[in-house]
Every structure is written in C-alpha cells, then in structure tokens.
C-alpha cells in the first residue's frame, strides 16, 4: 500500500484545522508550567505550511524539506525546532520518491525521533514529545495497511499520554517543576496526540 503527495496535502489540512481548534488549549497547557506559546507555535507553523501546500513538489523528500523550513522560519520555540528536525529527517529518507510505502511509517517516525533526540539531547522516557513518537514507531512497526497504521498510531499517542501523566517532567521549562508536573500531561505530548490523530483522520 503506497501513499503520495495528495495524502500528504490532506493530512496537512487536517492537522492545520486541528491546531487552530486546539490553539487555546495548547497555550494553556504550556502556560501551566511553561511560557504558554505552544498553540502559537503550532498554528503559525501549520499556517506557513498551508501557504506552501499547493506548490509542493511531487518529490516527497523535497516537499517535506520545504515543510520543515516553513516551520523553522515561522517559529523558533523548542517544539517548532524539534518538529522541523523531525520533518527534515523524514525528508532525507524520502528524497527522490514520489510515493511511499505505508510500511515505512514506523521507520520514518523512529528516524525523526532519533534526530530530534540528537538535537534536543533529551532521553527517551523523559516525558517529552519523543515518547509519543517512540510509542507510535513501536505500535506501527510491521503494519502495512493504511487504516491499521492510523489506528495503531492514534491509540499509541493516547496511551503514551496515559502512561506518562504521573511521571515528572525532566526537560524543557517544566523540568523545573518536576513535582508539579506529576499528574499533568506534557504539552508537547498533548500536541503530538492531536497532530497524530488529525493526520490519521481520527
């Protein structure tokens, strides 16, 4: 089963809408222990990508590279930089391809997770967006069907949130309030839940 640029553009539309919808919620989640800009970061980033979407090249690698750059230019917050890093990793993997195998999803997500880890120097298990991606990579491994991948990814981000809620933050602004963060969702994981579910059409 393969997907092409059309599927990417549709996913962009769904994620953009979801970020507009969750703007206040993500700002508020980030504001509890951070600086309250996560909704701003994500709506700006997705708006910038939306502006490009009609002119994206068919080469999926080049298309994702342009998306990554749009994110970089629109926001320099931690999350924006990490998103750009992850997109760039996927872009490199898909360079020269106009289609990609659904079975590649797990590897693409795992690759993004690794590059983002290198950039941000956080540990897996530290209650960050990395853990959501890690859960998605593991849950989708070995799956080749579009709907199966979508469902597995959506469940994985939900479960990751559940699993980490009671753990303390170890990275980002919230690390300073490790105690207070127990019982609160990590805003970046929350955002990734919304992104993955919107991309998966869930």
């Amino acid at each position, binding site marked *: 089963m393969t997907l092409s640029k059309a599927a990417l553009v549709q996913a962009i539309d769904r994620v953009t809408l979801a970020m507009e919808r969750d703007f206040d919620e993500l700002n508020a989640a980030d504001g509890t222990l951070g600086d309250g800009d996560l909704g701003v970061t994500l709506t700006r980033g997705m708006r910038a990508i939306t502006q490009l979407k009609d002119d994206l090249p068919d080469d999926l690698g080049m298309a994702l590279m342009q998306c990554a750059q749009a994110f*970089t230019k629109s926001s320099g917050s931690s999350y924006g930089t990490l998103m750009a890093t992850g997109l760039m990793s996927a872009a490199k993997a898909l360079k020269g391809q106009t289609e990609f195998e659904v079975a590649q999803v797990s590897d693409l997500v795992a690759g993004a997770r690794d590059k983002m880890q290198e950039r941000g120097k956080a540990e897996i298990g530290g209650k960050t967006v990395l853990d959501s991606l890690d859960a998605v990579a593991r849950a989708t491994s070995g799956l080749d069907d579009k709907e199966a991948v979508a469902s597995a990814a959506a469940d994985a981000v939900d479960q990751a949130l559940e699993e980490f809620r009671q753990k303390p933050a170890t990275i980002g602004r919230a690390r*300073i309030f490790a105690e207070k963060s127990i019982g609160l969702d990590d805003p970046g994981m929350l955002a990734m839940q919304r992104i993955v579910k919107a991309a998966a059409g869930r």
Partner: protein
Amino acid sequence: MKKILNDPEKYVDEMLEGFVAAHPEFYRMHGDSGKVVARAEKAKAGKVGIVTGGGSGHLPVFTGYVGEGLLDACAIGDVFASPSADQMADAIRAADQGAGVLRLYGNYGGDIMNFDMAGELVEFDDIECTTVLLTDDVASAPPEDHAKRRGVAGMVYAFKLAGAAAEEGRDLEGVTAVAQKAADACRSIGAALSSCTVPQAGKPTFDIADDEMEMGMGIHGEPGVWRGKLRTADEIAGEMMDRLLAETPLSSGDRVSVLVNSLGATPPEELYILYRTVKQRLEAAGATIVMPLVGRYATSMEMSGVSFTLCKLDDELEALLKAPCNCAFWRVG
C-alpha cells in the same frame, strides 16, 4: 488586552522597524530576515564578536544591548520564542570580525537547539564559535542542579563584562572565559505581581489575584516557588536578598554590583523603595556596592514585578563593569 498594537502577527516586525528608525545611530538591520540587529557601525576588525538571541518582549534585552562595549549583533524571535537557526547564523556572520564569535545567551531549550544549528551552519563560513549560557535564576533549580537554571537578568552583566573584554581586544578564549566568569558570578531572583500578555495568545499567560504575588517567577511567566498574598516591600526585598545571599555569601571587603530591575510595569518609585533594603542588607554583610543598577534592564513587556541580580566582583570584573559602553538604553563612561 491592554496593549497598543496592530496585527499581533506583525508585532515584532513593526517593533523592530520602529526600533532601528528611532535609534539609527546605534542600530541597523542586518541581512534580509528582518530579525537580525547589528551595530550601526561595525566594530574594529579583529575584535571578537559577541552575539545573543532569544525571544522578543524583554526590551532592552536583547536587541537594546547591541552597542559599543556590549554586543555586536542579535537575532530576535517572536515574543518569547527563539529566532530560527538561519537568523542566528546571520547574526553570527554580522558579528564576525575574523576573530571568532561568542554566543552568549540564556539557558532555554529553543535557543540552545537553534544556536547549535546556527553554529553548524557557520562552520561552512569558517567562523569559530564558543558558547556561554546564563543560568542565573536561583528559583528555577536547586544549587546542585544549577546547570538546569533559567537565564534571566544576569545576562545584562554578562553582556557588559564580556563586551568590555572584547572591546579591550582579548581573544575568543579570553572573552569566553570572562563571559563564563560573569555568568558564574551572577545570581538572580524575580517576583511577579501580574502577568504579561503574549500578543498572539491574546490573553494573560497566567491569572493572579489582585492581592497576590508569586516569588521566583520566570521572565516568561514560568511559575515560581510560592504564590501568596502580596507582602510589603521590605518583606519582599528581604526574602529575595535571603535567597540570593544564601548562594552568594558575602563578607567584609567583598565587592558586588546589584541590579534592581523592573519586569515592566513596576515603576522606578517602587524599585527605589526596594533598593533601601537591598543596600542595607549588602552593607550589613560588609560588602561594598559597586555601580548599582536600578531601572528596567530586562523585562517581560507589561508584567508587574521585579528581579534582583547580584554580581560578585573581583578586580578584573570591576574594571570591566566600569569600562565604557554605549547603546540606546545604557551608557557607562
């Protein structure tokens, strides 16, 4: 939202446009990103460059401190958001005079990731870069985890001291060492009485009752160590000094500079009321106060609140603190 602006999306661009228009003798835009401010006149060839960067909304930090005896260039992001790696790379190029560039900025995740990326980008230009991070906010992690601490108003001292060392002609290693020494010498703590509003968020970052305050709050509204009823000026200053002196023990003969800083809305009248206690506590410890700074040096737009920074001096740092500097917001000598 009690803010005077046009489109929140254009807040930073319009701010920077007015900023360089108002002070052309000090500042110019560099490159075409619209987010890099450099000295109006380049420093002399061979001087080590100093760049900083970070989110907007803290004037005079960051752009304001570009100037003689201070910074060479600065990349400035959206309100409270890091500039991009490209912009930071541009700032590094603007600052470079062939002697390398020190990246001197606060310990925030977005800034670190982007300055690291920027460093990778300018490797192609053969610009040697070093890094010093400010971690002066004592409320943001215990002393044993001091490397995790946020950077706040202490960067004003770091800019000044490293800037003077660079202007004096020291090499990259020397300037970096001074910056690290300055960063190590500074301890800060803040207390907020009200939130600011990020223009694009459109509402205050946090709610706080009219009779409440928060001790230890960060410069972006990050939570502090306690929230409670608003105390008197003497009590607030007393607790802030307790927390600073616990980490910067002073004894007779020590020299220290102190910055009593408004986070924005708090007027100088209140800073002077606080300064009485600050001075009394420092003198009671036997220390001599060198060049105290009272005013708005590092802010969070219209937040009301204050921060104190202690900067312990030795002969070298004292001389650098007193060396000339000049920008639209601060002049020494």
